[in-house]
């Protein structure tokens, strides 16, 4: 299971990458492998304000639908439009090409309350 060191993680298997007051968000390698072949990604619109835990969209495989939850409070300032036509990117490149949205964080200190890679790895082990 690929768990990059530099990212933050949530219990719902989203990752977040802090970039200068912004957070880039996607789903983890574990999440994509549990879902199987992703066939559709439906993301909220640019400009939407979200609170931590709100839905940023849904990810669908043939037989399952999963919500993507916001790791922090903020506003969606960018949406990855490539996923509309290439949902398979989520399976192949979940940490780079398949980022989902970029959030402008209301409170950048919220990021540090998320799990780091080591805690996420432990969390996955405990879940199993």
């Amino acid at each position: 299971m690929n768990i990059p060191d530099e990212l933050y993680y949530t219990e719902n298997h989203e990752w977040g990458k802090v970039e200068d007051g912004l957070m880039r968000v996607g789903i983890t390698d574990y999440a994509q492998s549990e879902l199987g072949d992703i066939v559709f990604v439906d993301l909220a619109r640019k400009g939407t304000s979200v609170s931590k835990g709100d839905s940023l969209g849904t990810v669908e495989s043939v037989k399952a639908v999963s919500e993507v939850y916001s790791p922090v409070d903020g506003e969606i300032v960018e949406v990855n439009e490539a996923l509309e036509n290439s949902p398979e990117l989520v399976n192949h490149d979940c940490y780079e090409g398949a980022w989902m949205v970029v959030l402008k964080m209301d409170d950048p200190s919220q990021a540090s309350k998320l799990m780091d890679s080591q805690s996420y790895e432990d969390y996955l082990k405990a879940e199993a």
Partner: protein
Amino acid sequence: MPGREDVARFPEIREPLLNTVSAFGKNKRIVPEPFDVSGVTDLSGAEEMPAIPDVSEVETVRHFTRLSRLNYGIDHGMYPLGSCTMKYNPKIAEAAAASLQSIHPADRNAMSPVLKYLNLLQKYLGDICGMDAVSLWPAAGAHGELTGMMVISRALQVRGETRGKVLIPDTAHGTNPASCVIGGFGTVNVPSGEEGFLTASILKEHLDGDVAALMITNPNTLGIFEREIREIADLLHENGSYLYMDGANLNAILGVARPGDMGVDCMHVNLHKTFGTPHGGGGPGSGPVLVKKELAPYLPLPVIDEDESGLFTLEYDRPLSIGMVHSCLGNVSVCIKALAYILSLGPHALPEVAKAACLNANYLKKKLSGLFELPYDTPTLHEFVLSDKKQKDDGVTALDIAKSLVDSGFHPPTVYFPLVVHGALMIEPTETEPLQELDRFVSAMEEIAGQSTYDPGNLHNAPHTSPVARVDETAAARNLILSWP
């Protein structure tokens, strides 16, 4: 015991789409032309040809005959889809409904005898289920559930109460939550007890003033009779809530136990399951709704009435009714087939249905539970659930087992349902399976269990004998092609 037979390989038919064989002038059909069309000059699309293929009669006949050969039906062999009750569909029922075809529902004189029989079916269904009033109009099981939820919603409204949620056990059918939501309720999932049925004490924890109803299937999707149902009904009624029963599994208790006696207030039955009408590749079915007296005023419109002269008519003046749920009378011909089925069996053979259905299922369970994991050891009725736990160690899944059964000439059982069992295989043979067919199924399952240890790869690639191999559903969903160009 007969060994696992090799089924003849299907001819590999690559049947084209009709549009690819279409060419101008192939279709030479003459249709009735009683009128002079020269006066028709004012229709906007009169010049344009409709966008459908131009093929000859023989091509149409061969095309659909070849397509039919790619299907598996109940007349081929056992179709043990749990909770779907794929029993033999008696041919006489089709013949009985044939003369309905030409009748227009506005033809009142012709409709009177039809309504008389629909009325009789309502009475019989009420007698069989121990319920007081029936509406035949819902066109399918899910439509019946929705209608039932609307009836309950209306009853609460008349009582001047707002109750927002319906409790649904984790063994419920997939449609149940969606039907509740469209009926205006929220849903709360209730876990079953350790033995695979809902207990009164579990229910108690979930009861409060916001509970409109409990929607339960009895026997449930594990094939287990909800033995505390009477206590459950009493608790609900004390709480001012209703008991709704999904009658999908009525075949198990037909003529042997009546939902009405269990305290059920509202339920639906599936004529295409319990009463032997064909499934038609996904419909038309029929999902009549049955209620106790208290809920009768809310049943959908119209209501069948008999006037002084003995003429059966339709009554629309019922102010408390939820209203109409279908543009006409539901799937009338399906109802007539179900009535013919009931009359063909008669009062003595009807309870034999449940008996043989339960015996067949318990025979299979006994034979198969050594080879496959049996997650619940509680006695079962007409169906039972195995899991792929034993085969999982060799990498063989419920899906592999299901697909491999196709190679032995069977339709697979329901898989991955109910959700309370991981890797579920839900098996319902029904009463119409001969012992020899059950034994053939056992042999096939034995061979699959064996193969999963010595040749699992073969199972991953199953089925090998079907017209097409496993279908790429991912590609279908990623690149949507929903019609020909």
